[in-house]
C-alpha cells in the first residue's frame, strides 16, 4: 500500500465536501474491496475518509410502505432483516449467495454497489487494462475471457460487475440516495447508477467526484415468487458465471401472470431489459432472446447465452411451483 492520511467523517455532507476537495481522497466503509486493491496498488488513495461513525447503518420503513437501507448496513444485517426476508426475498437470496460469511459481516450496501470488477486483467498490474490504466488496451479481449461480459461491453472493456446484491436491487427497482459535495441531495434509479464502458471504462458510475451514497430505498413490496439462481464454478464463495434475479407472479393459463428478471455475471452492470419481460409467458428462450439480443460474446464465454436461458428456465419452473 502507498501511505495515506486518514480521518473519520463527521457528517455525510462534510464527507462529500472533503472527498471532492482533498486530492486523492476516497471513502472507506467496509474496505474489503478497497484494501484488497490498495495492497496491489491498483487503488492508491492519498487520503481515506472513514464513514463508519456516521450512523448510516439503519434499515427503516418508508412512508410509502417501502424500506430505506442505510449505505453502511452490512450485507449480513440486510440479508437477515425479517422485512427483507419476508417481502424482498430476492435480495436476501442474492446477498447470501455472495462472498463469504466473513466478508458479508463487513461489506456494506453502498460498497457492494461500488465494488470494482474482478476481471483478472484489471487485477494484474503487469497487463494492459483500460479500466486500470486508460488507453493502455484491453487484455481480456483475445485473452482468457470465460468469466467476462457478453452484453453491454465495448471494444475497450468486457469486464463484468461482480455484485449479486445489485442484480436483486435492479429487479426490485431500487433507488440510490446521495449527498453531493455542495450539500444537495439526489435520487438515482439503480438502472442509472452504473455506466456502460464505451470508450471510458474507467468511469464506472454516474456519481460525481465526492458524491456520497447515503441510502438505497426499495419501493413497497410487489409480492410474487422471488428467486435468485446463481451458477458458478464452486458451490460457495465464487463469482457468478450467470445469475438470475427474478420476481414472478404465478397465475394465468401458462403459469406466470407477470415477471421481472435481471441477469448478473454477463454485463458491466446488472442487466435488465424491461421490454423482454413482456415475453415471460412464452418462456425462457423468448425472454433471453430479448435480454441478450445485443450480446457480443467471445469464443470463451459464448456458453453464457445458453446458460442464461437454461437458468431462467429453471427459475420459471420453480416459480410455477
Amino acid at each position: 500500500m502507498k501511505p495515506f492520511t486518514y480521518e473519520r467523517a463527521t457528517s455525510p455532507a462534510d464527507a462529500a465536501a472533503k472527498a471532492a476537495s482533498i486530492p486523492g481522497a476516497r471513502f472507506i466503509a467496509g474496505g474489503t474491496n478497497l484494501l484488497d486493491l490498495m495492497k496491489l496498488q491498483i487503488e492508491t488513495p492519498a487520503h481515506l475518509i472513514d464513514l463508519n461513525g456516521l450512523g448510516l447503518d439503519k434499515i427503516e420503513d418508508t412512508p410509502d410502505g417501502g424500506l430505506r437501507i442505510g449505505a453502511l448496513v452490512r450485507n449480513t444485517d440486510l440479508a437477515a432483516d425479517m422485512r427483507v426476508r419476508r417481502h424482498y426475498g430476492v435480495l436476501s437470496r442474492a446477498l447470501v449467495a455472495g462472498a463469504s460469511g466473513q466478508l458479508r459481516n463487513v461489506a456494506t450496501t453502498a460498497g457492494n454497489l461500488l465494488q470494482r470488477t474482478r476481471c483478472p486483467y484489471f487485477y494484474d498490474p503487469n497487463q494492459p487494462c483500460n479500466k486500470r490504466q486508460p488507453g493502455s488496451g484491453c487484455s481480456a479481449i483475445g485473452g482468457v475471457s470465460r468469466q467476462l461480459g457478453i452484453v453491454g461491453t465495448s471494444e475497450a472493456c468486457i469486464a463484468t460487475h461482480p455484485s449479486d446484491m445489485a442484480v436483486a436491487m435492479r429487479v426490485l427497482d431500487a433507488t440510490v440516495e446521495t449527498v453531493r459535495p455542495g450539500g444537495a441531495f439526489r435520487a438515482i434509479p439503480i438502472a442509472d447508477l452504473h455506466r456502460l464502458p464505451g470508450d471510458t471504462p474507467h468511469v464506472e458510475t454516474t456519481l460525481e467526484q465526492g458524491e456520497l451514497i447515503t441510502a438505497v430505498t426499495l419501493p413497497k413490496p410487489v409480492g410474487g415468487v422471488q428467486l435468485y439462481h446463481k451458477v458458478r464454478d464452486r458451490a460457495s464463495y465464487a463469482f457468478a458465471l450467470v445469475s438470475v434475479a427474478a420476481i414472478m407472479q404465478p397465475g394465468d393459463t401458462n403459469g406466470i401472470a407477470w415477471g421481472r428478471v435481471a441477469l448478473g455475471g454477463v454485463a458491466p452492470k446488472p442487466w435488465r431489459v424491461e421490454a423482454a419481460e413482456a415475453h415471460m409467458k412464452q418462456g425462457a428462450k423468448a425472454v433471453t432472446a430479448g435480454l441478450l439480443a445485443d450480446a457480443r460474446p467471445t469464443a470463451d464465454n459464448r456458453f453464457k447465452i445458453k446458460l442464461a436461458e437454461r437458468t431462467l428456465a429453471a427459475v420459471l419452473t420453480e416459480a410455477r411451483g
Partner: protein
Amino acid sequence: MRHHGNADVSRRGLLLGAAASAALTATPRHGQAMPADGDAPPAPHPGPAPVMNPVMNRVSLTVNGTAQTLEVDTRTTLLDALREHLHLTGTKKGCDHGQCGACTVIVDGRRINSCLTLAIMHEGGSVTTVEGLGTPARLHPMQAAFVKHDGYQCGYCTPGQICSAVAVLDEIKAGIPSHVTASLTDAPQPTHAEMRERMSGNICRCGAYSNILDAMTDVAGQRTAGQQNGRDPA
C-alpha cells in the same frame, strides 16, 4: 492499559508534519468536478499517486479483554497489528486478500477477515483472537473438539477455522440465513449443509474439512444439550 508503538511524540510529530506537507504539495489526482448528468465525465482516479511519507496514527482497542493503545502506520491492517505489534501470532496470514480465512478473528461479536480491515478503523473495538478463546489449560469447547476430532493436519488454517466455527454457530443461533437455508422465514438449524456453506470462507489445503465438520457438530450438539440443561458450555 498497555501502550505499544515505536514512535515517541517528537518522532510522531515529525512524521505527521512531513505527511501533511507532502499531502499539501501532492499533485491532484482527480479531474474537475463531473457534470451532474454524467455525460463524458472525467476519470475518477487518473494519474499517478502523490508521493507521501508514512503516516502514523494512534488507536485504542481491546484485544482478548486487555485494553491496548497502538501507534501504527495508517496502512497497518488489523492482522498486522495483532501479529507484529501485539505479538499475538496465533492469527495467521495466508493470502492477505480475504480469500483463505486464515486471518479470521471475532470483532465486536462478528467474524471478519483481519487482513482486509485497517487497525485504525477499530477505535474502541473489541477483538477476540484464538488466544482469547481459550488457553492450553482451559480450552474453548471448539478448540477441544478440534483436538478430539483431529480437525487439522498442518494447523496453519486452524486458528481461523476455530474463530470462524465459533462464530458460525452463533450466526445460526441468531437466525441469520445462508445460501442453503430452505426457508428464509424459518430459523436455520446447525445441519451439515449449513455448516459447510457457512465455512466456505475458510480454506484448508490439508483437507481436514470433514473432521472440522465433526468438531462443529459435536459443539453444536453440546450447545443443544446444554441449553436443555439450562446452561451453555460454548
